[in-house]
């Protein structure tokens, strides 16, 4: 496995913010909101975090992999995408759709 890209497996992410807080480069931005879900048979509705946006700023990322290590749900993983190049900084910020692991559509 090449360590050339950090991919987000969106379904596994619980918006717990651990990666955002542990990132030494402060390159991850995460936005989420909470909804109450009532499951059948449950006494009380439970609060669930819904991921709204997840951005990695690859102009700041130093590929240390701390976010991958701290993620308790394995929602972040090394991937074989190529490293990015761009002529402007905005293009270096990748969101959920760009962060999908290679092989998934």
């Amino acid at each position, binding site marked *: 496995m090449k360590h050339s890209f950090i991919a987000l497996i969106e379904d596994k992410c619980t918006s717990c913010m651990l990666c955002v807080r542990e*990132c030494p480069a402060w390159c991850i*931005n995460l936005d*989420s909101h909470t909804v109450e879900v009532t499951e059948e048979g449950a006494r009380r509705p439970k609060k669930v975090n819904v991921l709204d946006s997840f951005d990695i700023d690859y102009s700041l990322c130093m590929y240390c992999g701390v976010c991958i290590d701290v993620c308790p749900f394995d929602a972040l993983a090394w991937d074989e995408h190529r490293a990015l190049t761009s002529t402007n900084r905005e293009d270096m910020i990748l969101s959920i759709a760009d962060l999908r692991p290679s092989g998934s559509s």
Partner: protein
Amino acid sequence: MNRVFTWQQVAPDQWRNKISELIDSGFFYFDFLTGVDRENIDGQADCEVVAHLAKPDLSDSRIIFTQVKSELASIADLAPASSWYERECAEMYGITFTGGDTSPLLRHEGLGRPPLRKSAVLAARVLTPWPGGAEPEIREDGRKVGNVSRRRQRPPGVPENWLSP
């Protein structure tokens, strides 16, 4: 080449003796000297000074370290190569090497805390908004109705009173 590094601690007042003893016994290749901020070791010391000396064919080497408050005798006369490292260490960790070259390497005088000490606050960390401070919001129909509030989070390396000046 796999070499096992031998670490040895010495008292600060034995620092020069130990170095000269090592140099006399063939470890006269001076590799490096650096500091490690340990932040208050038993109320006695703040920093470790670490030096690596080796035999010139690199067949054997010794790493010796000592715990100091802020002063240590210079070994620049015993191992001239250490002079540059001592100046660097003095600038970055604020350790005074008595009897050595005290001219600054990079920093101007009066620039606050030595930058590699843990007590030195990075101003950029205070001025940049921390993405980790966000908490999930409770929304209804896209409207924010509340915060899932926990203890207010603080970014690592930023002291408490810096967030609300």
